[in-house]
């Protein structure tokens, strides 16, 4: 079974703090994704990566950066957390073929105070 893990299920941070969310997949997938999930808005893509050290902005990249130094690991960084970044963050990985699904991690619920 494909496994996608995220470093934390719940996280509480203060405004201005630097926040790291890590995601690891064990299926040698080329593509990895970071989404933000908010009620009524579905999943919105923050960033995705199609190879090591390669990244592309998604729909809502402002206030976020990412790092992919190894194929299996994709990190999301909030340089200076703000209250409007309180949300559920989902990581996913998948292959390059269009028919392939994405495999999701359990999510990190982040609260910024």
């Amino acid at each position, binding site marked *: 079974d494909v496994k996608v893990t995220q470093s934390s299920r719940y996280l509480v941070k203060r405004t201005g703090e630097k926040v790291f969310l890590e995601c690891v997949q064990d299926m040698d997938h080329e593509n990895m994704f970071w989404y933000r999930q908010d009620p009524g808005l*579905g*999943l919105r893509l923050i960033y*995705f990566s199609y190879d090591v050290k390669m990244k*592309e902005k998604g729909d809502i990249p402002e206030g976020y950066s990412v790092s992919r130094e190894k194929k299996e690991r994709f990190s999301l960084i909030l340089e200076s957390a703000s209250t409007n970044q309180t949300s559920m963050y*989902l990581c996913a990985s998948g292959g390059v073929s*269009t*028919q392939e699904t994405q495999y*999701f*991690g359990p999510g990190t619920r982040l609260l910024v105070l």
Partner: protein
Amino acid sequence: AQTVTQSQPEMSVQEAETVTLSCTYDTSESDYYLFWYKQPPSRQMILVIRQEAYKQQNATENRFSVNFQKAAKSFSLKISDSQLGDAAMYFCAYRSPWDGQNFVFGPGTRLSVLP
């Protein structure tokens, strides 16, 4: 850019009954994939069913089936013999082979199953 709409924020169904969740999308492409994902409370999102746009036959997976109407850009999910474990958020998603192979998700439908 493609968009995906789910017009029913919440639905409910009686156990053992059938329910249909709606999804419409907007695209100018002819080849793409459509997916339904299920996110149970506090659990990981998983794939329910997928459909390739070129296939006219509707996909089925056990109690889950889709009604894919390409001309109408509609992709509804039918759940037959609903079970308590079907209670979840359901997301419809579109994947283009061209646009960075990204997925575009709808806002979701929360399904409750009543005993």
